[in-house]
């Protein structure tokens, strides 16, 4: 590992910037993500910040099964994210496509698409329909430990 990667990893554990992608979630997960970022849970304590562009992101928070239309954008977003970065497959749908598993327009799960892009990617699974804000924060911290 080069000194640059080591620097980045050291920094990411202390200031993970999160970019949120919805690849076809029913929106409930997204509302729960906003809950986790609201002042009550104060994610900024851990340096967590929601950013507006994948170029600034360290953690991609992907909610929902990957639909046909969102597969390519998800790949693009992963490509656009500067490495090193981590991915959180969010909610039952993110982990396994959940109740949408047999839908006609569902192309597969988040991990399949990301693994096709980059077999080495760090992916955390966060089940729940939707997960509680406390679970979200704990998953974020566990992802950072795994990096």
């Amino acid at each position: 590992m080069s000194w640059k990667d080591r620097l980045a990893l050291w920094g990411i554990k202390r200031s993970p910037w999160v970019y949120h992608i919805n690849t076809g979630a029913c929106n409930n997960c997204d509302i729960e993500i906003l809950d986790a970022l609201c002042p009550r849970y104060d994610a900024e304590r851990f340096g967590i910040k929601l950013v507006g562009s994948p170029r600034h992101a360290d953690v991609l928070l992907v909610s929902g099964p990957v639909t046909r239309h969102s597969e390519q954008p998800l790949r693009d977003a992963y490509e656009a994210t500067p490495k090193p970065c981590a991915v959180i497959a969010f909610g039952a749908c993110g982990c396994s496509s959940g109740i949408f598993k047999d839908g006609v327009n569902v192309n597969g799960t988040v991990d399949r698409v990301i693994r096709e892009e980059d077999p080495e990617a760090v992916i955390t699974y966060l089940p729940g329909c939707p997960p509680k804000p406390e679970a979200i924060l704990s998953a974020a911290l566990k992802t950072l430990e795994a990096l």
Partner: protein
Amino acid sequence: MENWLLWSVYLLIFPGIGFAMVVGILASWVDRKVTARIQFRVGPPLLQPVYDLVKLVGKEVVIPVSAQPGVFLLAPLVGFVAAALSAVILGVNNFLGQSFLADLIVLVYLLLIPSLAIIVGGSASGNPHSSIGASREMKLVMAYELPLILAIVTVIINAGFSLDLAVISAEPQISSISGVLAFIVSLICIQAKLAEVPFDIPEAETELMEGPLLEYSGLPLAIFKATHMLLLYLLPLYLITIFLGGIGTGYGIIWGGLKYLLIIVLIILIKNTNPRLRIDQAVVFFWTWMTALAGLAVLLAGVGNIYGIGWL
């Protein structure tokens, strides 16, 4: 030779990059902490801005295919260097009591360059969102520069047509009616210069995804963030030098620090109690209300100067 050495110390360590960066990092932490306390949160740890910068330095630098690589990478550097140079001019004046002919004018130009760097960088990145952001930044610069310069003209008149920071900061310029008006106008223009809410129109996270900075990653983004931290230190200091009689020497430095805290907390409070304006609203606001107020200040200062009335 000696002189050359001395000035590189000025540039790199004391009042230049080193010192300014430390204060800028603290100011950026104060900004985030006070914001957090206003929202009844705990807020980030003291070293959070350092963590952010270190992380960005370590990350990969992505250069988009659509970008002009040279301009794209140079723009942040130019902005940073301009901010560092203004830190030297302001610092040398405030802490070492030195100044040179017409340094106020040099400062006005140097403090404009970071905004221009954002415009140039955003346009060079070839992203449509970035170019919208850059065009908004350009409109914003044109909107707030006019009242800001009128406010500075007020101060110049009040200080007996002097362009030297040393003369201007020798006494607090806010001690007259025109000074108070000019101070209010400048405070609001500084808010726009920092691109803080309600004037964060170019960066509008929710609609433009950080606008001109969208395509930046890694080191160049770190430099932009560092420039913003420098400005967070510089612009309040600029106001203090011009309006509040400078930082002061000896025990006066404590008093100067209090002035600095007052201004930065004012900026943070404005930021946290206002929603974002649209770009047309901002331009109208600056070109009518602020320009009128600043024009009035110039008028009062002129009348006071001609008839020798000190309190105007």
